[in-house]
């Protein structure tokens, strides 16, 4: 800038000084005037030819096109009405084909009569139907495989079996398989003439009972938070469970107030008691596990100490004091490690002087902390050498009850329904519930994103957001059609992708950063540097323009 400002006097200034002072600077030569013109032109050429294009290019806001209407439609539920048709296979090996078909028809009929929630319905199918059609057609192995892909998940297999010494039908559910056995007295085979045979009514009622909780949960989720007849217990369960995450972090901690036990067979225990459960959860969520041992972990001074109960011969904690049991200030329980939310499982071994320890009201030794984790009290047998003391090492076998508790707590915390008793059925229910939750949450994220971009026209929309949105919408569509076809595992897989992409697009860094950046702030960004640079440049330009105009006028006058 020195070259401009450090220049000699301009004609106007020299004219002004001429009148006031005696010492007159010599008049400028035309060469000097031309040089100054060139200098100013050189600076302005750089600004106009390079500066303005760079300014235009680097500060223009890129807004990728988003399918706003489609996103809003998803949010408002106009595109997809989620339905849950559960396919249930019925096998009645002892019956004639016609008899079993009749049984199926009548059972289906009474099921449909029961059902008042249309989105969730049970579709009965004869188990040997599909195998018969496959046997008749001469399909290759590949097309059979494809057909299996297209086919709906089998939610449940009902085996209807005769049993001689029965007076009324009874049922038995397998705890580790998706199978329900129904036993009936052989004389109760439904007659083709009867429209509502007792066996059909019994099966329908059993199925209805199996799926009542799931039906209520899904109805509760789809309707939003509107209260229904039994939605109080469901919303309570949903409140206790964690928000869905793609990956959960499980943290197992052993706390004890003394120096022992100082080691535990945690690796073997996790492998033996927990890994099968986590594997079963694979289609729903992933898990990472870490463990710690904390010795000399004392209660918080604020927490009421356990009280010795003569009747129970045990130290007892009051139910209302359990919330203060965890010494959050001193026990190193991290709220979150890594990306996913953390579930904490605390195994507490009381000091020998306070052993055994129980909950006063119900003699329980464990409880759940909603949306946080679970606590289990372990009272190992004390060794009586000099003074009573805890064992130094907790074996895998001694950890067994605690880990059974933890598994149960984990299921609850992840939102698994309490009924039915079969774990595979409960997990299937969870798949459907999670698919519904994710479908709704991704749809509502889409709606929020659409409204956000509409209401803030100044924020940029990077191309990555547009591609995330399109991925989300595609997968939402897949989820919806998979649900319609009864393929729930596939639906959940798509819904997980949709949810991840929806979150990514909504929380895009460059977009969020601009949300709270009003236009006035740009003054603060531009002025401190460009102001000082710009003033001499602009003043120089104005003077030069004035001189040119004056020169032209003088020439016109002459």
């Amino acid at each position, binding site marked *: 800038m*020195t070259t401009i*400002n*450090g220049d*000699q006097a301009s004609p106007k200034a020299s004219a002004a000084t001429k009148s006031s002072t005696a010492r007159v600077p010599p008049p400028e030569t035309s060469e000097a005037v031309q040089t100054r013109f*060139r200098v100013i032109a*050189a*600076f302005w050429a750089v600004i106009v030819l390079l500066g303005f294009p760079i300014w235009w290019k680097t500060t223009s806001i890129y807004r990728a096109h988003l399918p706003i209407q489609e996103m809003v439609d998803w949010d408002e539920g106009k595109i997809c009405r989620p339905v849950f048709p559960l396919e249930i296979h019925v096998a009645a090996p002892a019956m004639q084909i016609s008899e079993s078909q009749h049984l199926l028809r009548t059972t289906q009929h009474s099921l449909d009569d029961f059902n008042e929630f249309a989105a969730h319905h049970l579709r009965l199918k004869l188990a040997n139907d599909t195998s018969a059609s496959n046997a008749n057609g001469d399909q290759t192995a590949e097309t059979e495989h494809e057909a299996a892909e297209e086919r709906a998940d089998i939610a449940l297999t009902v085996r209807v079996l005769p049993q001689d010494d029965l007076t009324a039908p009874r049922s038995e559910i397998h705890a580790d398989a998706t199978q329900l056995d129904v036993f009936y007295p052989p004389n109760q085979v439904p007659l083709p003439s009867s429209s509502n045979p007792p066996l059909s009514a019994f099966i329908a009622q059993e199925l209805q009972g199996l799926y009542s909780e799931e039906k209520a949960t899904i109805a509760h989720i789809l309707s939003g938070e509107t209260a229904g007849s039994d939605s109080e217990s469901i919303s309570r369960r949903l409140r206790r469970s964690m928000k869905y995450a793609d990956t959960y972090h499980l943290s197992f901690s052993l706390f004890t107030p003394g120096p022992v036990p100082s080691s535990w067979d945690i690796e073997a225990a996790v492998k033996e008691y927990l890994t099968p459960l986590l594997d079963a959860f694979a289609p729903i969520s992933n898990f990472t596990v870490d463990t710690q041992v904390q010795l000399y972990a004392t209660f918080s001074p604020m927490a009421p100490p356990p009280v010795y109960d003569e009747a129970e011969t045990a130290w007892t904690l009051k139910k209302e004091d359990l919330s203060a049991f965890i010494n959050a200030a001193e026990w190193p329980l991290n709220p979150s490690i890594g990306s996913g939310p953390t579930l904490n499982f605390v195994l507490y071994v009381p000091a020998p002087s306070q052993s055994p320890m129980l909950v006063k009201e119900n003699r329980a030794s464990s409880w759940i902390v909603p949306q946080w984790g679970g606590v289990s009290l372990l009272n190992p047998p004390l060794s009586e050498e000099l003074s009573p003391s805890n064992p130094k090492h907790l074996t895998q076998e001694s950890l067994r009850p605690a880990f059974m508790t933890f598994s149960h707590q984990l299921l609850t915390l992840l939102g698994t329904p309490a009924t039915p008793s079969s774990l595979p059925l409960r997990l299937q229910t969870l798949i459907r519930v999670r698919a519904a939750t994710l479908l709704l949450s991704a749809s509502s994220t889409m709606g929020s994103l659409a409204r956000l971009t509409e209401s803030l026209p100044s924020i940029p929309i990077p191309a990555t957001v547009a591609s995330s949105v399109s991925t989300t919408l595609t997968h939402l569509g897949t989820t919806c059609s998979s649900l319609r076809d009864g393929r729930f595992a596939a639906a959940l897989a798509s819904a997980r992708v949709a949810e991840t992409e929806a979150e990514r697009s909504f929380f895009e860094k460059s977009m969020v*950063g601009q949300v709270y950046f009003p236009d006035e702030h740009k003054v603060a*960004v531009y002025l401190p540097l460009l102001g000082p640079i710009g003033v001499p440049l602009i003043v120089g330009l104005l003077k030069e323009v004035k001189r040119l105009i004056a020169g032209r006028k003088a020439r016109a006058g002459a």
Partner: protein
Amino acid sequence: MAVDRRKIAVFGAAFVLRLLLVCLFPSLPDLLTGRVEVSTPVNSFKRPIFYFLVDLVNAQALITISESGQSVQTRLHSAMRKHIRWDGVSIAAWFLFSPFTIATCLARSTSVFTTTGILYAVSNAVDGNSINAILALGFASYISLYPALLFVPLMLLCYDRQAQLSKTPNAAVFFLQHGAILLGSVVGLLGFSYLITRNFWEFMSATYGFHLLVPDLTPNVGLWWYFFIEMFDSFREFFLGVFWLHLAAYVGGFTARLRRQPLFIITSLLGVFAIFKPYPSISDASLYFALLPLYRHLFPLMRYTFFAISALLYSSLLGPAFYHLWIYAGSGNANFFYAITLVWSLGLSILLADSIFAALRDEWEQAHPESQGKEVKQI
């Protein structure tokens, strides 16, 4: 003969001084290599003796430039006080014994190669070897990118020398020809790099992309790092453009205003680069300080030398101390060091502005001999 003996003495002493420093303080080179004032992400490299020789080669180029007399007497301009000047060996000694040069040399900074390229471009230009000058500039530009901005003033220098020594060439043809040679030499060197690295775009983004986009904001004596640490991400590209244009904009202005003294344009632009380039170090300042004594005859016209030199000394001494307080002792923060780099840049700016003022005053006195020595007032 006497001059030769002096020259040998200066060069020998400079070499021995460096050797002594390395022998007496073996940890000095490593210490200096780690200093942010000297070492930036774009100039670290190893092996001392070789660097001693490069310094001597640079000093030789300075002697050539000084002996051509281009600083006092150009084709279009003749200084008023041309009797006040230092001879080549004194200027070489000034360069060789400058603590900034020695620190750069011992720190084995690759900036000295850029310095060599620039000094050889200028020394060939004053000798009238315009082709060699352009090839040297191509080398410097290939290494450090920013010397390419010196093309226009260097061409003016070559053009003036050619006109003085033989005959006036056609200006347009002359510029196009040499522009093509510069382009050709840079493309040729890039071709070699491609043959060695085999991955052209990765090479380009790791070298010139680094210069242009300034991804590493390690503190240095320049003005960029702090500004870009503080800048909002969405404005980063824009201000990168502003900073680079700011650097480039001086070329046109200086060239137009100081057309009659092309060597002085180059000197002043080197001063501008030492202040405003993205990864400056004291080696850039040492190059500016090496060329400035060529204008010994302007020193009497300068007004703020005391203030400028005080600011430079103050910041050279306090800079390392404040950096230590910030990084090692932890009793200061980034603003300590940043404030000192501001003082450093301020000192250089004052020196630069003052020398340009002196050069303009010199031209003014030549046009108005009657007002020589009189008080001037800027209106």
